[in-house]
């Protein structure tokens, strides 16, 4: 736990050490649960003593103190030595600086532990943010609006579930990618910026693996995040893509996203994140909404939909996104026909109605648009979106008079 008075220490640098030290301990054969607890204690200790006695090698210091905690815990010895030990902890003889790939291996290894396929998604998210992202339980709890005790329980259950599992097998990268994207989409507001955390984790992942989908995911996040400043007006109202002030987009982030995406596509092993990033890149590339290259976007959506055997059931979001592109390329009526394929699958979701409303409006059918916006508003599960859809309904209804 990292408390206010100690924020003066370089907290970012300290957090960056967490996955390395933890991975080292677990790989050495320590139990994940115990090692994570020991490292958290070592971090607290670091914040207490480093301002007075900065260590020469912070990583080695943490590893040493965490190891002593583990030994302590095993021997059930009294804590009376702790303060003294921590103050005088000297790192072992300096190790040679590890190569970048070794650091990457550590990150990947830990992500595979935290995103173990047998854990529930909420547990994977919490454990990743704590063990790899170095966030405190309290920060994670705040980010998800749950009591700290609830998040603590979730984390300790997840760690218990890892107990006795073999963690030395290669993990499932697809699960890691899904968990990181889940963290990204959980939001950007509040004291802890989860979107920023997710981008940081994805960046680490791309240093650890050559897998193009990891780069695709990072590119997707960057390209999406770049548009964030334009996505809300000063009073917090949603601004849709076609009406955004493109001057507010973060050009540097878009450029980085495009670069990362190109390096992924060059490997010629496309996947859903690369494709979604390519679509985001085309939006990011258009100087105005009118200049959007919808035919190319539609071509990418064709590829995206082709990844599933039964897209309407397995990936309705892709089919819905494609329907919008069809509407812009082949006409609103054609787009609406595409949404019909989803009627039985997701007609209870607000997004299905919102897309149909958009297509009706594109078609000039304002009464139908107003009705569909109102239907969407009734099903929204997010306050900002509900308010936006209510306004859209009122606007289209007023315009038809």
């Amino acid at each position, binding site marked *: 736990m990292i408390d206010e008075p100690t924020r003066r220490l370089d907290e970012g640098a300290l957090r960056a050490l967490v996955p390395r030290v933890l991975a080292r301990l677990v790989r050495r054969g320590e139990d994940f649960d115990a090692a994570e607890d020991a490292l958290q204690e070592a971090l607290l200790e670091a914040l207490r003593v480093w301002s007075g006695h900065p260590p020469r090698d912070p990583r080695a210091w943490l590893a040493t103190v965490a190891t002593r905690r583990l030994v302590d815990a095993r021997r059930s010895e009294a804590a009376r030595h702790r303060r003294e030990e921590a103050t005088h902890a000297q790192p072992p003889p300096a190790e040679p600086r590890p190569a970048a790939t070794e650091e990457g291996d550590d990150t990947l290894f830990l992500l595979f532990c935290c995103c173990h396929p047998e854990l529930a998604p909420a547990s994977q998210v919490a454990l990743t943010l704590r063990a790899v992202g170095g966030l405190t339980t309290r920060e994670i709890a705040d980010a998800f609006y749950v009591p700290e*005790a609830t998040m603590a329980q979730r984390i300790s259950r997840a760690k218990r579930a890892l107990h006795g599992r073999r963690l030395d097998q290669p993990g499932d990268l697809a699960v890691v990618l899904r968990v990181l994207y889940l963290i990204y989409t959980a939001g*950007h507001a509040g004291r802890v910026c989860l979107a920023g955390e997710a981008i940081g984790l994805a960046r680490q992942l791309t240093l650890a693996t050559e897998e193009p989908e990891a780069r695709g995911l990072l590119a997707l996040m960057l390209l999406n995040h770049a548009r964030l400043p334009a996505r809300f007006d000063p009073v917090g109202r949603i601004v*849709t893509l076609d009406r955004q002030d493109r001057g507010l987009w973060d050009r540097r982030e878009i450029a980085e996203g495009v670069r990362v995406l190109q390096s992924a596509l060059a490997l010629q092993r496309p996947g859903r994140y690369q494709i979604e990033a390519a679509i985001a890149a085309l939006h990011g590339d258009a100087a105005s909404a009118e200049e959007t290259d919808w035919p190319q976007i539609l071509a990418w959506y064709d590829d995206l939909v082709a990844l599933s055997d039964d897209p309407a059931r397995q990936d309705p979001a892709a089919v819905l996104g494609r329907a919008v592109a069809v509407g812009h390329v082949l006409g609103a009526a054609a787009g609406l026909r595409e949404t019909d394929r989803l009627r039985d699958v997701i007609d209870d979701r607000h997004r299905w109605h919102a897309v149909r409303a958009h297509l009706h409006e594109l078609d000039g059918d304002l009464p139908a648009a107003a009705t569909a916006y109102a239907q969407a508003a009734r099903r929204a599960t997010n306050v*900002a*979106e509900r308010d*936006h859809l209510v306004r859209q309904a009122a606007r289209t209804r007023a315009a038809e008079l």
Partner: protein
Amino acid sequence: MPKYLLLKHYRGGPEPHRPVPPIDQWAPEDVEAHMAFQNHVSELLEGNGEYVDAQALTPARTWVRYGGPDAAPVSTDGPLPETSDLVAGWWMIDVASHERAVELAAYVSSEPGPGGEPLYEWIDVREVMWERPRTTDAA
């Protein structure tokens, strides 16, 4: 992770599956068992890492409205039809899915009633809207 309210009502809702007298007319041990179960539900949710909040409301209700310019607020505590809906309290949970919320609501509804038999109480399951704006573009 969506949040849900599992609402208990003093009255209102669908036709009771098992009509029972008010709790103050139950046998003392049945009352005890019922209350113990409520505590058990909170502990269960906490242990699962699904607990957000639990509150109970008194049945007293005051309806209030703006009285107009320069006028006092208008309020009334009745008379209201006996069938009007009256919330008694809730658990707020943070769970993986709507299915999980329904599963927990059904468990709450299995609470012991008179004779220790399940009460089959109707539980009102409501999703809490996510306050934070999304990170991706809205439709």
